[in-house]
């Protein structure tokens, strides 16, 4: 083969339209898979240490079902979905309202967690150092709450941009990426709720 000048294969023939998936969505799916693995390890630790605490208090004695927080967080999945579909249709006003509602619901959830922790630490005297229940409970619920905080911050940025008039229909795929993350945070809560508050009690 003689040396050729720089050559790049270019085909004249036209293939079927060349469409590839949105990279934001694929990237977020990858992140969710990686984060799920982290959560699985914390859930496994929680289940593995269930009933192995050498001293009290035990979950059955001190935990109460976080009904309000759960309802708020799960319904925020619907509002964030609504925000995305409104933006896709170009309804900026509705999108803004739905985003604000999502943030409000998420904030209520965080408040209920904060109240629960205050009660446990202040009144019951259960800290992360007390026993294996404290260790696994605070780390698992805390890891989830951290994700809620991160999600809320990103939602607030999105809301700020929407209020500033910077968001148009063209950004609906980006908001969808964020909504995927928020759905994931909700899904994790379902697992945490079942493991910690239903199975663990």
């Amino acid at each position, binding site marked *: 083969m003689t040396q050729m000048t720089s050559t790049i*294969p270019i085909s*004249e023939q036209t293939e079927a339209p060349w469409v590839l998936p949105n990279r934001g969505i694929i*990237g977020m799916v990858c992140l969710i898979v990686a984060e799920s693995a982290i959560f699985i390890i914390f859930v496994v630790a929680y289940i593995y240490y269930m009933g192995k605490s050498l001293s009290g208090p035990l979950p059955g004695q001190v935990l109460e079902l976080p009904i309000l927080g759960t309802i708020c967080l799960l319904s925020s999945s619907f509002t964030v979905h609504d925000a995305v579909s409104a933006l896709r249709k170009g309804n900026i006003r509705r999108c803004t309202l739905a985003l604000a509602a999502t943030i409000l619901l998420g904030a209520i959830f965080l408040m209920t967690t904060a109240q629960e922790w205050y009660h446990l630490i202040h009144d019951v005297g259960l800290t992360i150092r007390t026993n294996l229940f404290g260790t*696994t409970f605070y780390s698992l619920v805390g890891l989830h709450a951290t994700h809620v905080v991160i999600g809320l911050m990103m939602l607030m940025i999105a809301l700020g941009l929407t209020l500033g008039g910077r968001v148009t229909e063209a950004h609906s795929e980006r908001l969808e990426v964020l909504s995927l993350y928020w759905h994931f945070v909700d899904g994790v809560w379902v697992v945490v709720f079942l493991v910690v508050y239903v199975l663990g009690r």
Partner: protein
Amino acid sequence: MANATPVLEAIDQTLEQHRRPPMEVVYEWVSTVDHKKIGLMYIAYALIFLVIAGLEAILIRIQLAVPNNHFVSPQVFNRLFTMHGTTMVFFVGMPILFGFGNYLVPLMIGARDMAFPRLNAFSFWISAFGGLLLYFSYLGGDGLYGAGSAPDVGWFAYAPLTAKVFSPGHSTDYWTLAILLSGIGTTGTAVNIVTTAICMRCKGMKMSRMPLFVWLMLVTSCMVFVAVSPLTAAQIMLTLDRYIGSHFFDTQAGGSAVLWMHFFWIFGHPEVYILVLPAFGFVNEIIPVFSRKAIFGYPAMVAASVGIGFISLSVWAHHMFTVGMGPAGNTLFVFSTMVISVPTGIKIFNWLATLWGGKILFTVPMMFCIAFLFQFLIAGLTGIMLSAAPFNWQLSASYFVIAHFHYVLVGAIVTALFGAFYYWYPKVTGRMMSDTLGKWHFWLFIIGFHLTFDFMHIPGLMGMPRRVYTYEAGRGWESWNLIVGIGALFQAAGVLIFVYNLVRSYYRGEIAGHDPWDAWTLEWATPSPPPSYNFAVEPTVGSRRPLWDLKHPEDPDSSYE
């Protein structure tokens, strides 16, 4: 089907290098988001750590060369093997393979950059910071307790040795944080590579036409999500234990040391495959080019890679046969470990079938690949031996295990890596590496490798445990350990020649041209070194070997698809 584009001649004139002030060059590299520059920084940083961790290995071998030796103190010896293992896995193996992935994946699929260039730069710098943090422990590890300097808990850091009570000082914290950061960086890069391979392919580059190296980087990156994340989670737990007094691995409060073992090896065993799959990728690209044949059994290769990816997630507890998991657990892990040799065997047969009847050219990269084939086979065979639980009970934590996994890591991965260096160096620098020096490197390194790791099996079979500081004379271990030490020196000489070759060829090497090996994948369609935009026009491909189609319009692959 395709035609050359003379317009490129004009565009590529921008490649002319001008002398610039050094600060400007430094600024360009520090602030770059170009996947090629980031890939090269990954490789350079890994090579520096390769030399450091290699020197640590040589110190270990000097200490063990003769019985009753006191070349280093026992404390220093513990630090040496911990740092050697941690550095080699997290700060040599991972970054060098992801460096190659960064450099090559976009070029091979005809993309202009990775999917997320800024995330790419972030991942690199956070990993690099992790490595620096690990070595900063030599200065900062004393902490308030004045105890310890570098980490000395072993590379898998079993609980409860890592608890604050047993490892006071900050050395273990440096270990934890370094690995946590490297894990974050690795996950970021893996997200990037998967997204790039799925979303950035050029026109016509279907998944079924992707070069096998890209496929293997894709599988490796997917494994990173599910294998590295558990380690990140376990490191978070360990940090909580050490800093705010939680009890995950605190056996005094009911915590379990075995849980750490599970968490570590859920990461630890897939990690071996995370490291070896890119090495398979190199071999998949190099062997066909120097056999002058298309790869044999492309779909089987892809299926075997994906199969290895899945099965490797279910084998971790073969590191733990001695903890007493009971017959059911043992049987499961014996079985899954033996099953993984099936897809691996498929790969070896496919490589042999590619060589079969080919017009084999014994260039330096090809020589390394042939050595890889033999050495990887032996590494796999000792792996099957160790997968049998009763055999494993006898030899767990002996030098036989050390010899086995170094056969994989050095005999397979490092050997394939050297081949990759010789193969892609002309693309990266525009110059060929010296053939003579390459052959010296090859023979010194291979002789050294076999002296070290063939003979390391024997003291293992004779009962020499890993991590011993020294040993009594008269157990029959002395001469074997001496031979192993001499082999290490041969390997070091080989690596020195390699580094010299890298530097010398950069200035004096033959000019390579854009396609010195007459290869077939898209990276060889660009000038060497490729411009920052990679492709002046977006390529279109019609088969797995686009450049073959271009060079052989009379008989293109695309006509057979």
